[in-house]
């Protein structure tokens, strides 16, 4: 291999010259929030006490549910992971155009995160992640539990209050949580008034690849299941689910476990609707109780099934409307 040496040298020199200099204006005040309120200390889901000089104003949220919670408290995050995806999947609380994308949710860009000079990074608990200790060297990280199939509503309250305390909006959070409770209680009343309490339901989403359909039932303990149960329904899915999200996996045949003719189907399909494209003509599907009785309800696109109180209200409203219609 013969290198055209002079050309390479010239190019290298040019590159070197153009690469000199610095990108940061030194002494950029990191956070000018000489806040009225003093420092806050929150204990996050890891049991770690995280202290901020003041309630956070510049927040980066690395999971959609957490981004929604932050935004719903009136603090628009400065950055979120996969913003384009958020716009499709979570319409409960819109993010403004100013929210910067920090990369994919599974591998967010650390550069982008610190580039936003945040006061705090809020992220969901995940196993085997080296991300938390890495980011923590630079900026406080508050880790939420994000989901816990054994106590998802309590978990939601804790996460939401944790985030609220982090951004100094605790009163606001209490208000929203009691709104949510009131909404659920009202919904439950409406369902009971209709004599529909205890109606069995299946909540699911699904994927279609080629002609392969996978269905993901939200089992007991998943957040949306807890929501539906809070308004008086009963989860009919008894298959195995994972302990964190309460998610199961099955094929169309597996749905035949649902035999109660009163069963209602709710499904989420913000991008591709496998229940109409992949399954509608299927013999098993056609015999399922909710298909026979036409009790099928597609959640509006952008009803995020792993969201915050606003998503819960959005989901509950649709469920109650469907049941009492």
């Amino acid at each position, binding site marked *: 291999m013969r290198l055209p040496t002079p050309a390479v040298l010239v190019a290298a020199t040019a590159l070197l010259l153009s*690469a000199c200099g610095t990108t940061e204006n030194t002494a950029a005040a990191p956070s000018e929030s000489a806040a009225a309120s003093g420092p806050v200390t929150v204990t996050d889901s890891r049991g770690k006490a995280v202290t901020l000089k003041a309630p956070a104003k510049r927040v980066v949220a690395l999971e959609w549910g957490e981004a929604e919670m932050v935004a719903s408290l009136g603090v628009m995050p400065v950055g979120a992971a996969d913003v384009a995806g958020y716009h499709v999947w979570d319409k409960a609380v819109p993010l403004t155009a100013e929210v910067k994308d920090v990369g994919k949710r599974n591998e967010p860009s650390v550069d982008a995160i610190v*580039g936003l000079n945040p006061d705090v990074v809020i992220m969901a608990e995940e196993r085997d992640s080296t991300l938390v200790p890495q980011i923590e060297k630079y900026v406080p990280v508050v880790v939420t539990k994000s989901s816990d199939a054994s106590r998802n509503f309590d978990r939601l309250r804790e996460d939401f209050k944790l985030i609220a305390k982090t951004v100094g909006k605790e009163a606001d959070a209490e208000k929203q949580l009691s709104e949510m409770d009131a909404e659920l209680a009202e919904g439950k009343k409406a369902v009971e008034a209709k004599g529909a309490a205890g109606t069995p339901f299946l909540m699911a989403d699904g*994927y279609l690849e080629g002609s392969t359909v996978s269905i993901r039932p939200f089992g007991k303990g998943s957040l949306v299941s807890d929501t539906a149960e809070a308004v008086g329904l009963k989860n009919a899915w008894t298959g195995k689910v994972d302990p964190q999200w309460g998610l199961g996996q099955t094929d169309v045949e*597996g749905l035949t476990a649902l035999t109660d003719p009163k069963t209602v189907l709710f499904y989420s399909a913000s991008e591709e609707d496998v229940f109409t494209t992949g399954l509608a003509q299927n013999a*098993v599907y056609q015999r399922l109780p909710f298909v026979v009785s036409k009790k099928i309800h597609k959640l509006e696109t952008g009803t995020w099934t792993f969201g915050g109180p606003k998503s819960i209200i959005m989901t509950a409203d649709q469920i109650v409307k469907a049941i009492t219609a």
Partner: protein
Amino acid sequence: MTTEVRGTSPRRGLVETVRTPQTIRTAVVSAGLVVLIAVLAGLHLTQGTSTSGPLDVVKAIFGQGDAQTLAVLEGSRVPRLLAALLLGIALGVAGAGLQSVARNPLASPDTLAVNAGAHFAVVAISAFGLSLPLVPVGGAAFAGGLAAAVVVLGLAGGGSASPRLVLVGSAVLLALQSVTILLLLLFEQETNGLFAWGSGSLTVADLRATGQMTPIVVLAVVALIAMGRRLDVLALGDDNATVLGLRVRRTRVTAVVLTVALTAAAVTVAGPVGFVGLSAPVITRLLLPIAKHRALLPVSGLVGVVTVLGADVVLRAIMGSAAAVRVPTGVVTTIVGAVVMVWLARRGRGSGSRRPAPAGRVGVAGSARRLVTISVVLVALLAVVPVVGLMLGDRMVLLGDLANWVDGNTGTALTFVLDQRLPRVLAALLAGAALAVSGCGIQSVSRNPLAEPGLLGITAGAGLGAITLITIVPAVGAWSIAGAAGVGATVVFALVYGLAWRSGLDSDRLVIIGIAVWSAGMALITLLIVVSDPWNSAKALTWLSGSTYGRTLEQVAPVALALIVLTPLSWIKHRELDLHALDEDTPRVLGLRVERSRLVVLAASGILAATAVSAIGVVVFVGLVAPHLARSLVGGRHGRVIPVAAALGALLVSVADTLGRTVIAPAQIPAGLVIAMVGTPYFVLVLWRTRP
């Protein structure tokens, strides 16, 4: 099955007498297979996630079923069964056809990358949001598969019976898989479903795809069987066939097109179900050793059905139907196929010491001036590339910033960016160097310029070890992961080595068995992730495609240690490596204890590769490309090759990593994918230059 001999052959009577026992044997085998398929199909129909049990199904078959069971059969079990039947026939016949065309028992839709080409086309269509009806999807799959077949067969030099074909095919397969994964990453809809489908799944919910593909499969199978005579003649060799009046080229092209159509149909229905096309014809040849194509092709189809159905039945019997929903059937067929491939490789005759030394360059020493120039350039690049790696990324940094950072004068944000970028740059550099040195050792002792730690199954073994540990103990330290990777690599490599050892180590056999074990290892990694952590596609992608994301200095330490200790050790042995690379006999004659020396070299190579995997996941091609490039720069003497290859490997992975972090920022491309995309064209170039 009638094997009538038409025409007016004067030797007709003779042929008939010779053929009669074979005809009977064919009939018996076919009947046996049909019975087996019937039994398996029966079992298959009784398995499923609903409560419709065997009794219900039996009743339904005899016309007394309840409506529910009938619906379950119609809407779920029969489509699944028919898909399995279609797949088995299509892939079995396609494999037999390809093996005949290539005159190579290792040819198959998998090893010739036809599967991967078709799969890539299907994913590309869905990634770019072109929602086409199924037939055009099938058409795209056909185009993709055909392109892959043409490239592989072209590069491998037509109908040679060499394992080269498999090497070329595996390389093209790797590249196509990488681009496919990249598309999945970039167009990250919900990749969970796609991830499983990428290994071949039978969970079909309707008969649309099966129905639309059936005529294509039937036509192609009939056409291939009709070509049976011509394929028989083709098997005699190009020259003989030409003498006998066969239009060799036309026959070959037609057969390839038909087999690709079969493969594309199968991929359209269920994704790439691995290695059915490889194992079915091999098993058929065992059952019917001297079968002509008119028997071979259909019987291979039947064996294919047995393979697919059997895999599905066994999978669901072991795991339970509900849990088995997650596991792609292709994972099982791949493992079965890998066993067949190993067996086949062990059975084949060794190529002995006919193989020339790597690229025929041993002893060719470049001029001193050239060596100096190359060293200077490499050292300069080794200084520049990591610096550029530190500068580029999602956030661009200038040299002044770097200087400030070194002095400790940067602001917190920039300090942090560079602090977390440093381990990534180091991980890429060190893992690249380790893989390259590892590749030098392996290529030398296997005397195969196409061998490398990835294709020998070592990196897959390391990945399997590491991911097994992570699955059992989620929050485990870097040294433990490196240890588990080491154990995995050792076990798998011992397996490959032991299997390849048959009164001597044949290098081709080593590589073929390596590829088989590599495939099985990757299938097992997929299985492990799908079963243990189904909602974590990030983890899957890191381990299967090699990434520096989130590396810490602690994770880099094992590979650094291995490099510091083992590179000088390998270098000291450079004369031994030179000898190994010559041929089997010279080192013995010169008094080298060949086996012991070989084992030491391979162990060192294995450790280097394993620590590299624990640092950045499974990355292939570096161990192949870097030593090869080094030889072409400084000649074949290992005293020179090892340091140059180490430098090149470090540069290659570092550049790939920097590109991956920068090009689509803030999203990122795993370094391993970039390597595969850069490495494959180079590899193909190497093959093109060394084609027979």
